[in-house]
């Protein structure tokens, strides 16, 4: 090969490995940066007035003067909106007074009762003929009623009309009962014939009303869909409505501007309407509200909401430190993540309390007593093997042994989880501590022993203190690992919902914990779009805890190295 080619290959190789190192080295930034940027939004965000309302009513925050002013302003803007909605829902803008239709109904029945003889003769026919004749008669009788209904529908737009129609249907049924009774009074008419009369006489108007209601149902469901969106945006109207709601998420509007904007563009500006598909099956269809409503009153309501969006919600930038200290409310949609942080703290600290002394003791044995004998090597191999066991197997072991066999607690508990975690991090602690002990120069040991100290005394008085800072590094790093592990606590300690538990409950109660709840809120939350910020916030919190531990370990190590260099 020519020299120039070899040179090209050499630089290609160099470039390739540089790129690899760059990718590997900066991957951590690629992971953390997006989470950090969005995670900050969990506690620093543009809040709407609903945020303050929620805090003051549920978590005993006090309202500042400016908050009260904002609530007042938004209430004023909302008042106008509710007035518009009210006037639309109770409007009677029909060209035909509805009483007239009712009157026509009664008069039609009365007229038919006067035709008693004709109807009786129809009823004496054979069943199949009978039904047909009744229907024919009814069609003539109900003509005026049908026309009036048609006229009324053309001008109607309000909700009253739909109510009126249902009422008419009900009344038709009961009137028909009386009517049939009236016709058959005193004559010998079979029950079947009477039923046939009752049913068939009102078939025509009922079908008219049904069709009418169907048309209105579409119109009204479109309106209700938009109204639902508005209520989701700004919350229910009155205190009473608020108290009737079961879930906290229904009691308040959107607390965050970003989600509020999404609700505006997806649930208000777009609505779902019922349509009959080609196959005759009713389906829901998404359409633009603006096109659907046009210039009608709902269209004006939409315009008002879009125009006065800021006045309705009064967005302002806020910092919510309570994210870290408040309990979550309604499946993490409101409130903070305090129980998860506390649970992680309990699990980590308990695991460390168990694992650190054991790990240090084992490391002392390995480095000071064991040497390189067969038993020591076997024990060392076991430590390595334990380090390689998949974390989920630790979880199963915790379940099968700690909980089901020796019953450290009745079910999941912080204690069982901590023991499992302790076992998981034990190999790491043993290894790092052994290495730090081995790094203590032999002259220390010889000096101590030479001064007459026993082995035990040499270890406690000289070697351990010398190795302690570097041991601390290893212990802190494994603490970070314990804080972030999920699989071992799934079956032993973690619960997806629940409040912070007290210190006395750690032997009996499961706890929410950051890692498990991150999984849970990402994969199993029923309203993932409402808790996006909490997902990021939790992930960022966990990263911060772990990185803080690791960075402090790196810092301690760097100090140590400097100190060693200066010696």
């Amino acid at each position, binding site marked *: 090969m020519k020299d120039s080619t070899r040179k090209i290959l050499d630089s290609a190789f160099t470039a390739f*490995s540089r790129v690899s190192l760059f990718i*590997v080295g900066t991957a*951590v930034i690629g992971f953390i940066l*997006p989470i950090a940027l969005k995670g900050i939004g969990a506690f620093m965000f543009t809040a709407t007035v609903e945020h303050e309302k929620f805090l003051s009513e549920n978590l005993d925050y006090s309202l500042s003067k400016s908050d009260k002013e904002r609530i007042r302003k938004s209430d004023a803007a909302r008042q106008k909106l509710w007035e518009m909605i009210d006037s639309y829902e109770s409007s009677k803008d029909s060209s035909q007074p509805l009483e007239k239709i009712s009157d026509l109904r009664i008069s039609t029945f009365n007229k038919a009762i006067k035709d008693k003889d004709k109807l009786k003769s129809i009823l004496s026919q054979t069943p199949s003929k009978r039904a047909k004749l009744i229907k024919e008669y009814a069609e003539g009788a109900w003509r005026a009623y049908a026309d009036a209904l048609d006229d009324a529908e053309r001008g109607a737009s309000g909700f009253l009309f739909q109510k009126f129609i249902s009422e008419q249907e009900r009344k038709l049924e009961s009137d028909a009962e009386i009517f049939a009774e009236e016709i058959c009074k005193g004559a010998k008419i079979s029950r079947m014939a009477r039923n046939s009369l009752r049913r068939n006489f009102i078939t025509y108007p009922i079908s008219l009303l049904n069709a009418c209601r169907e048309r209105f149902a579409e119109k009204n469901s479109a309106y209700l869909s938009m109204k639902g969106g508005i209520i989701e945006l700004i919350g229910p109207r009155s205190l009473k409505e608020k108290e009737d709601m079961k879930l906290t998420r229904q009691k308040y509007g959107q607390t965050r501007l970003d989600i509020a904007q999404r609700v505006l563009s997806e649930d208000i500006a777009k609505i779902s309407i019922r349509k009959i598909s080609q196959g005759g099956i009713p389906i829901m269809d998404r359409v633009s509200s603006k096109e659907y409503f046009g210039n009608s009153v709902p269209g004006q309501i939409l315009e008002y909401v879009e125009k006065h969006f800021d006045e309705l919600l009064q967005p302002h930038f806020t910092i919510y430190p309570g994210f870290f200290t408040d309990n979550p409310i309604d499946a993490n949609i409101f409130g903070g993540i305090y129980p998860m942080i506390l649970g992680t703290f309990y699990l980590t600290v308990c695991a460390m309390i168990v694992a650190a002394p054991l790990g240090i003791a084992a490391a002392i*044995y390995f480095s000071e007593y064991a040497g390189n004998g067969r038993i020591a090597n076997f024990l060392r191999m076991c430590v390595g093997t334990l380090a390689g*066991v998949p974390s*989920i197997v630790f979880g*199963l072991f915790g379940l099968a*042994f700690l909980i089901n066999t020796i019953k450290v607690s009745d079910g999941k508990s912080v204690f069982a989880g901590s023991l499992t975690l302790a076992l998981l991090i034990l190999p790491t602690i043993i290894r790092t501590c052994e290495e730090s002990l081995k790094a203590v120069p032999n002259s220390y040991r010889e000096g101590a022993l030479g001064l*007459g100290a026993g082995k035990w005394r040499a270890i406690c008085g000289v070697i351990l203190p010398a190795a302690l800072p570097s041991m601390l590094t290893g212990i802190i790093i494994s603490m970070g690992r314990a804080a972030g592990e999920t699989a071992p606590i799934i079956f032993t300690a973690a619960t997806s919902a629940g409040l912070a538990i007290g210190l006395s409950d750690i032997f009996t109660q499961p706890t929410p914990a950051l890692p498990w709840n991150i999984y849970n809120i990402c994969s199993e939350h029923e309203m993932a779009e409402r808790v996006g910020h909490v997902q990021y916030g939790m992930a960022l919190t966990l990263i911060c805890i772990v990185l803080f531990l690791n960075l402090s370990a790196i810092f301690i190590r760097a100090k140590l190295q400097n100190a060693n260099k200066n010696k």
Partner: protein
Amino acid sequence: MESGKKHSLIMGGGQNFMREISQRIGRGLLLSITAIPTLAIIFMIFFIAKEAAPFFGNLSHTLEFFTSSNWAPSSQNSPHFGALAIFYGTAMVTLGSCVIAIPLGIFAAVCLNEISKKAAFFKPMVELLAAIPSVVYGFFAIVIFAPILQEEGGILIAAAVFLLGTTASIVIGICAGEIFAEKAFKGYFAKRSLLIKAIMILSGIFATFELSLSAANLKIESGTNAFNASVILAIMALPTIVSLSQDALQAVGRDMREGSLALGATRAETIIKVVLPCAKSGIAAAIILGLMRVIGETMVVWMASGNALKIPEPFFNFFEPVRTMTATIAGEMGEADQSTGSDRYHVLFAMSFCLLIGALIMNAAGQFIGGSFRTIKK
């Protein structure tokens, strides 16, 4: 000794005896603590085998377990325990992450140890990568990476294929062109191989271009799939591979490198032909340990792999959701542990028994290979 004013420097027999006893007791205590990991391993194997035994006791179930991919362990009438698709899913994501992690990891380790002057910056960054909890990786995979993959996946992959393919075809074109020119044409052409090289490089680039065009048209139906899990797992395995490989590279003596360089080899030649062969057992151990992290990882695959219970079609399609052993255990044990003793409970323990045995074997292999490397180091 501050406490023994009256004691003479030479200790008496009684004192010696007491000291001996306490030393023995202390040593015994330490030994028993040190045996905890050993006991834990033994108990772990025992208890998981005990819970798995009822399942493996049923031969037809066991046979189905390894040969069928019909998995319905909770069915009341006709439960099925075919875990083949689940084993296949584990193998698939492991293989996928290996393909990404091994070259990247080894190159990075080489650069960290031999080439880069910024190792002081990159080394802690790689360690931080190891510190990020697995659930955060899973979070990243499902919340950030999956939507990107679903919407822009084709273009991203096309860009990666094009970049990699172009550089590879340039390098390979130069090498192969030169060798071809030397072997096939003697004399004039051998010295002017530029044309041959150009043809090779251009054809390589053309092929990659075609390939990336077809990749750009790829429609990825679900962002949570084997590819997503493989990429994230690869990144999780990288810190292990990089730092252990770097240890192995460090152990190679300076004399080896200097000898090779003195003989006129370039740095790349030295690394490929001298340093890497010397460090190969250490690197193999690093790869095995990195692999173990991939196989044993739960949260990432649970969140990122899509958890579909079937072998993808065609079998090498990485853009289909798969399901792995760890994800199955984690996902189903929550529903099964209420009814301790059910078939489902036992089959999950059987699965984790397989997982545990696999991990133990790999661990032994890693320790064996790595151990031989460590003795060389000493």
